[in-house]
């Protein structure tokens, strides 16, 4: 199996899905000739032409709204937001239409579109280029909100998202784009949307994370083992919404101690929902308050101070140790 970066793996997913199904269309700002500012769509225009790889004018609401129309018409648009921080221009189109046309038309229309956006910090970028606002989308009924964490699962989830009959917001952790390589099979591979994964077994505590936070979380798990002899179970959400809580609940019941990690601001963030689900379904097994290791409730600072804002290995280990010493 070839080793790929996440950018290459996403490109593979797009390339194969476009080859497989000519209703798949890629559109957005600079996705064509330029190959996308992160090069996720690199070379697609050479293979599939301007007909299927569409450089659009600079207008996010239109990119989303046109995608909705395309999807209703029977195409499978995969549109790109250049950065997470500009995707809120599409909020109205997504909330009012993408997520509801199935309901509004009583099943006659549906919106099999994918809206891709690089999210999160870690690449020394400008303001609005490092946000993590997946909670916005996760709160909208009728939408799906997916965040991969590695090249291989990114490829498989993007394929699933494209084939999904419902609209999927697909956030790509830009810090992971080129951070490491992983074997990704040439052959088609999908992953079910709406399922989280246990990526490390452990009995002492549970760490729940997703996206770019998976790496520091896994490192923290290693360090906990190495330095403290603690076996942390690690779960990768993969789908934020609809949130599948079965694995979380199972793990929390086993370990009784849970921390959830994300880079989004803490208050009203995705971690709160994880806590609420665990309280609903595993309350009597919890031996300590579920901890949230997250971004702070401020705008993510410009890049020189970003590292203090983003949860890192040390903060996760610190939280885990508090959890373990509880009671």
């Amino acid at each position, binding site marked *: 199996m070839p080793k790929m970066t996440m950018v290459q793996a996403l490109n593979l997913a797009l390339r194969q899905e476009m080859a497989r199904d000519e209703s798949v269309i890629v559109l957005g700002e600079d996705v064509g000739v330029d190959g996308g500012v992160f090069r996720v769509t690199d070379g697609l225009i050479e293979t599939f032409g301007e007909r299927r790889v569409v450089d659009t004018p600079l207008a996010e609401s239109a990119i989303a*709204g046109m995608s909705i129309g395309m999807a209703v018409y029977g195409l499978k648009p995969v549109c790109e937001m250049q950065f997470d921080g500009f995707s809120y221009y599409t909020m109205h189109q997504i909330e009012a*239409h993408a997520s509801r046309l*199935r309901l*509004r038309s009583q099943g006659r*229309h549906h919106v099999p579109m994918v809206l891709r956006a690089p999210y999160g910090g870690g690449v020394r970028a400008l303001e609005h280029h490092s946000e993590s606002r997946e909670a916005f989308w996760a709160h909208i009924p009728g939408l*799906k909100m997916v965040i991969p964490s590695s090249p291989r699962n990114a490829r498989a989830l993007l394929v699933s998202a494209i084939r999904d009959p419902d609209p999927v917001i697909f956030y790509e952790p830009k810090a992971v784009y080129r951070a490491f390589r992983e074997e990704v099979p040439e052959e088609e591979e999908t992953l079910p949307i*709406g399922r989280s994964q246990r990526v490390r077994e452990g009995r002492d505590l549970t760490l729940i994370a997703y996206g770019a936070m998976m790496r520091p979380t896994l490192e923290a798990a290693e360090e906990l083992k190495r330095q403290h002899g603690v076996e942390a179970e690690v779960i990768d959400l993969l789908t934020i919404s609809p949130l599948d809580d079965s694995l979380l609940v199972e793990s929390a019941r086993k370990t009784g101690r849970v921390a959830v990690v994300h880079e989004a601001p803490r208050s009203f963030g995705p971690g709160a929902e994880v806590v609420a689900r665990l309280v609903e379904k595993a309350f009597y097994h919890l031996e300590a308050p579920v901890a949230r290791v997250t971004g702070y409730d401020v705008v993510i600072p410009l890049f020189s101070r970003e590292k203090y804002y983003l949860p890192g290995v040390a903060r996760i280990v610190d939280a885990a140790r508090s959890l373990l010493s509880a009671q």
Partner: protein
Amino acid sequence: MPKTRIALPDSIDHLSILDEHGKIDTDLEPTIENSLLLRLHRTMLLARRFDERLLSLQRQGRIGTFPPIAGQEAAHLGAVAPLRASDWVVPAFREMAADLWRGRSLESIVIYNNGFNEGGRIPAERNDMPISVPVGSQILHAVGIAWGMKYRATDDVAMTFFGDGATSQGDFHEGLNFAGVFQLPVVLVCQNNQWAISIPRSKQTRSQTLAQKAFAYGIPGIQVDGNDILAVYVAAREAVERARSGGGATLIECVTYRMAVHTTADDPKRYRPDAEVEEWRRKDPLTRFQGYLAAKGLLTVDNVKAEEEAIAAEIQTAVARAEEEMKALGDPLLMFEHAYAEMPEYLSEQRADFIRFMHATQKEGDHA
């Protein structure tokens, strides 16, 4: 040539064929088959009477808030008349006459206005989008559908409706710009009915016409007398043909008037003088069209009377049928339908809990 006037090829025409006194410009009069003229008339009359009926149902509390269409029937029907079934209409929320022409049932309108999502159902055999409430937002969907039509190399056309108020929205701008850049087969029909709730056209934008906004996107724009079904038809036909033949998008501004309230929750006395309404009453698109048809020998007093009776019966039956159908819609569990292709687990749990709760409280005899 340091200070040069730039030659701009565009210009804006105003089109009017059948004036408010019934005078016809025979040079411009379109040749329309008699059967089509009569079908248009029937739909116009049906829409007018049904609108009146909805208003009385609303006053009786038998439906909820709705937006009447009186005065805009010609601007609806003239626009959709050149379309074929495989084309797509992408409406806003005040195009009931166009909806009826496209095959929407009276029943579904009554059901929708009673607050049942089922009233929005689009039958499998029909294209077209359901009603879109957020002003201007649907324009982008029409652009996307038109993109699909071009991609699939059909010669179908998407036609979208929106009001004068909608021209202020960002989505209007973005949609028209995309339509221009991609040369899409889309017809953009602006219902300039002079008001956006209480905001008059003059305060909506400082541009002299709405049609000239087409300049900004390099697409043709035309202004028509929206109460003149012939003028609307001619402009729409030209735009539809342009779109079908690869000529791209057109903006049509129909100058018309909202005769009634904005919605039944609105009181226009607060913001506009009766005299203005009276003035427009003289331009009524229905009487104007009827005069034309009578002059052509296509309509007699007796014809109209017979149609009125048939229409009254049709409406009567439809309302009764809708009220009957709604009895089958009482199951609250229907609210969990159509959220996703497959119901997510946590939603199933919520649904199950709702069922448990309903049983429990029904047993206790209250579920306020």
